[in-house]
C-alpha cells in the first residue's frame, strides 16, 4: 500500500541564506508523525509547504502517490490547526466547526450532525452556540481541533498544538490528544519544539535542524540512540564523554574503561575515537555492579518523582543522573560509588559531527 504522504527532495530558500534543504519524508496512513526541532529549524515552513500555503522552489509533494505540489491549499483536503488556533472571531463554535463542511458543500442536516459528533469527540458537547471569544485556552484548542477534524481531512497538521496552553492543561492534553486523534483515525503531522510533547503524542518523530531532517524514528529509538552529539544535547542528554574504542563493546574514557551493550554506530571500529553518551538513568548506587565509578556529589535536588544528582569525577568531568525517589543519596561533598548500566550507554557519531 502506498504511503499517505510522501515528500521528495523539497527545497526552499530565502534571500538571507536560510534554506530548507532536500527534505524527504514518508508518513504512513493513520500515523502520528512529530516534527521536532528548535526555533528556526524549518518545521513550520515544512508544514506550510505541505499545506500549500508556501510554494517549494523544487521537490514534490505526493498524496496517495499523486503529485499535489501545484494544487491550491483549499483544494488539497488537508487540515491545519494553527499555533494560536486562528478561530474565526465573528462566528460561534458551531460556525467555526461547520466552516469546512459548508465549504465542502454538505447540506445543513449533515453539517449539524457532523458538528455535534465532532464536538463530542473532543469533549465539548453542547458548546455549539458559545462565543469563541469567551472560551478558555483549553476550550479554544479543542474547538480548533474539532474544526480541523470535522471535514475528515486526509492529513491533519498541528502547529504547536499545546504551545499556547498552561502547564497543567498541557500535561492533561498530552494524554488526551493522541487518544482523540487515534479515535478519529486520522493521519497527523504535529509540529513542536517541546521534546516531551513530541514524544507523548507521536508514533514517530522527525528531528529537524537548520532546515534539514537529521533523524527519524520512534521516540524510544531517538532517545536511546541519538545519532549525534547535537541530537543528544537537544534531547536533554548532557553526559557526553570522549571515548576510544579499545575492543568490541568496550571503550576507554576519562572515568575509566566501560562496557557498552548498545552500539549506536555501525560496528566496533577498534582503535577509533568516538563519543559516549551516558544516559541520566544509567547510574545506580552500587559497589559491585559493572562499570564502577566514584564521583563527588556537587548538587542534589529532589524533584518529587525523582532525584536529580550532579557529580564530578576527579578528572574534572561533570555528570548528571536521575535516581528514583526511593533511593537515599549522600549530602553534597561526599563521594559516591556508582555502577553504570552498559545498556544505558550509547556510542554517538564522531566528535565534530553535528
Amino acid at each position, binding site marked *: 500500500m502506498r504511503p499517505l504522504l510522501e515528500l521528495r527532495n523539497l527545497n526552499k530558500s530565502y534571500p*538571507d541564506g536560510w534554506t530548507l534543504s532536500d527534505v524527504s519524508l514518508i508518513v504512513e496512513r493513520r500515523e502520528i508523525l512529530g516534527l521536532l526541532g528548535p526555533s528556526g529549524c524549518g518545521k513550520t515552513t515544512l508544514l506550510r509547504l505541505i499545506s500549500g500555503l508556501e510554494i517549494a522552489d523544487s521537490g514534490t509533494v505526493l498524496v496517495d502517490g499523486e503529485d499535489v505540489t501545484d494544487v491550491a491549499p*483549499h483544494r488539497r483536503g488537508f487540515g491545519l490547526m494553527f499555533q494560536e488556533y486562528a478561530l474565526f472571531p465573528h462566528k460561534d463554535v458551531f460556525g467555526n466547526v461547520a466552516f469546512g463542511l459548508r465549504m465542502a458543500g454538505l447540506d445543513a442536516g449533515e453539517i449539524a450532525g457532523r458538528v455535534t459528533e465532532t464536538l463530542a469527540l473532543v469533549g465539548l458537547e453542547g458548546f455549539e452556540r458559545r462565543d469563541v471569544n469567551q472560551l478558555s485556552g483549553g476550550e479554544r484548542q479543542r474547538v480548533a481541533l474539532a474544526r480541523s477534524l470535522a471535514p475528515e481531512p486526509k492529513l491533519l497538521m498541528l502547529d504547536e498544538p499545546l504551545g499556547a496552553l498552561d502547564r497543567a492543561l498541557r500535561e492533561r492534553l498530552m494524554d488526551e490528544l493522541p487518544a482523540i486523534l487515534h479515535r478519529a483515525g486520522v493521519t497527523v503531522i504535529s509540529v513542536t519544539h517541546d521534546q516531551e510533547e513530541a514524544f507523548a503524542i507521536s508514533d514517530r518523530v522527525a528531528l529537524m535542524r537548520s532546515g534539514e531532517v537529521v533523524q527519524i524514528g520512534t521516540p524510544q529509538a531517538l532517545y536511546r540512540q541519538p545519532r549525534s552529539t547535537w541530537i543528544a544535547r537537544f534531547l536533554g542528554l548532557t553526559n557526553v564523554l570522549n571515548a576510544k574504542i579499545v575492543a568490541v563493546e568496550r571503550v576507554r574514557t576519562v572515568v575509566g574503561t566501560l562496557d557498552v551493550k548498545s552500539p549506536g554506530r555501525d560496528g566496533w571500529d577498534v582503535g577509533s575515537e568516538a563519543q559516549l553518551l551516558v544516559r541520566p538513568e544509567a547510574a545506580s548506587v552500587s559497589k559491585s555492579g559493572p562499570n564502577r565509578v566514584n564521583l563527588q556529589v556537587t548538587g542534589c535536588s529532589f524533584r518529587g518523582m525523582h532525584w536529580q544528582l550532579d557529580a564530578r569525577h576527579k578528572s574534572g568531568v561533570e555528570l548528571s543522573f536521575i535516581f528514583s525517589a526511593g533511593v537515599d543519596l549522600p549530602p553534597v561533598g561526599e563521594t559516591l560509588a556508582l555502577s553504570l548500566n552498559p545498556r544505558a550507554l550509547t556510542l554517538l557519531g564522531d566528535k565534530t559531527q553535528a
Partner: protein
Amino acid sequence: MGNLSERSARGWAAESRLSSLGRLLIYAILLSFLVLFYFYPLTAILRLSLIPEGRLSLEPLTKLIRTSRYLETLWFTVWQAALSTLLTVLLALPGCYIFARYDFPGKSVIRALTTVPFVLPTMVVSLAFTSLLGPRGLLNVALMQLLRLDQPPLNLQHTVFIILLAHVFYNYTLVLRIVGTYWSNLSPQVEEAARMLGSSRWRAIREVTLPLLIPAIAAAAVLVFIFDFTSFGVVLVLGGPRFATLEVEIYRQTVHYLNLPLAAALSVIQILFTFGLMAVYTRLQATTALPIELRSRRATQRRPQGWRQQLFVVGNLALMVVLLVLPMLALLERSLTLGGGFSLTFYRELFRNPRGSAFYVPPVAAVRNSVGFALATVGLSVVLGIMAASTLDGQATRGGSAQVNSSAVAESHTKLAHSRRPRGWWLLRLRRLLDPVLMLPLGTSAVTLGLGYIVALDEPPLDLRTSPALVVLAHTLVALPFVVRSILPALRSIQPQLREAAAILGASPWSVWREVDLPIMARALVVGAVFAFTVSMGEFGATSLIARPERPTMPVAIFRFLGRPGTVNYGQALAMSTLLMLVCTVGFLMIERFRVGGLEEF
C-alpha cells in the same frame, strides 16, 4: 518560533488572495477614477492658468503675485490660519492633558461630544456662530435684555474674531484626539522620574513631556493649519465681504466675475501650498505612528485628587462645553424663536412654495436632493473604498508591521519582499504609490476641485456639466479618504492566519473574502458609509460651484437663504441648518458606536 512563523505568515495571504489579473483590474479601476475625476480636472486648471492661449506663460501667475490685492488675500489666508492653529493648540492642550491623564465620570460621553463638530457642515457651523454671537444672536439678545440696550453691544459678525472662534470650534477635537491619544500612550513614569530627580511639576512637563509630545503636536498643528488654510464656508459667511481666503477668492472669481483663468491661477497657488503641507503632515504622522512606549490606559490614568486638580478638570470641561456645545444649542434655539417666542414657523416655511412658481421648488426639495446625492456617494465611495483598502492592506503586511520594534520581524519581511521580487514587484511599487495618492483629495480644496470639474468635464467625451453625477463624483472624492481610513484598520486587524485557516478548510479566495474579510470589516464599513453620508450632506465648497441651480443641496439652499433679505429667509436658513445638524449628529453618533480605531488615523 517567532521569527520563522513571521517569515512565512504572510506568504499565502498576500500571494493568492486575488489572482494577478483581478488585482490589476482593481488598480485599473481605482487609478482611472483618480485620473479622470481628480488629476484630469486639476491639470485642466493648470492648463487654464499657465497655458491660456495655447502656449506656456507664467504671466497670469506673476501678475497675480504683483497685484497687491491677491497678495493681501494670500497673506490673510496664511495669518488667520496660523493664528487659528495657535489658538486651537493652546486651548486644546490642557484638554489633551485631562483626557490623557485623568479618569472621570462621563469621560467617554464628553469625548464623543467634542467630536461632533468634526462632522458638522461649514454652513451649519457658520450659522451656529451667527446664532450665538451675531447681531441677532443669543448672546447679544441676552445682553440687550439684561442691560436694557437698544443696540447689540457685541459686533463680532464680519470680524476676524468670529472666524478664529469658528476655526477653533472645528479643529479643537482634532488636536484633542491626535495629541490626547499620543499623550495617554506615554508612560507617566518618565515624568515621575523627572520629578523624583527634583524638578517641579511644571518643569517636568516643560522639559520632559512637551518635548516628547512635539511630533504629535506638530502633526496635529499642520493638519489644523491645512483645514484653516483652505477654510471656505466659514469665511464666506462669517467674514462677509471684507475677508477672503484664497478659497473664497477662487469662488468669487468663478461665480461673480466669471474670471476662470484668474481663479485657476489662484488655485495653482493654493494647490502648491496644500500639497507641500500635506507632504509635511504625512511625514510627521509617520513619526507619531510609533508610540514611544505603549501603555494601557489604566496604567496612565487616575481620578483627579484634591480641589486644585478637580477645579482644573471641571474648568476645562466647562470650557469645552461652552466652546463646542453652546453654538449648537444657540442654533437650535434661534431656529425655534420668532419675535421673542417659541415658533415652528421657519420649519413650516421650508415646505411651502410661496410664489407658486414652477421654477421655484419648495426648500424641502433640497433635503431630498442632498439625501439622494449622499446615498449615491455612499454607494460609490464604499465600493471604491473596499477596493482601495484591500489593496493597501496587502502593503501593510510588509511595510506596516516593520513598525513592530523587532529586527527579526522587520528582517523577515524584507526577506519576503525580496523573495517575491521576480513575481510582480512592480505591483508592490504601484501599491506603495497608491496610499499617499488616495489621501491627496483630503488636502485639496473643494472649491478648486469644483472649479476643475467646471473647466474639465464640460466637453465630450466627458460632458457631465449638467449631470447630477458630477456632484456625486466630487463628493466621492472628498469622502474616499475617510472611507478608506475607516475600513483599513479593521482590515489590518484581521490575522492572516484566519484567511489561511479558511483556505485550508476548503474556501476559495472569493469565499475567504466573503466569509472572513467582509464580516470582520462589516462594522467598519458602516462607519465608512456613515462618514461618506455626512461628508456628502455637508459638502459646500465643490457643490456651490457644480450643483445645478434647479437641484440645490441643503448647504447650497442655506447659503441662498442667507443671500436674501428678511427674517423669514434667515429663519429658514436656521431651520435647515438645524435639520442638517441633526442628521450629521445622528450620523456621527452611529460612527462613534461602530468605529474601529480612532480619528487619529487621519
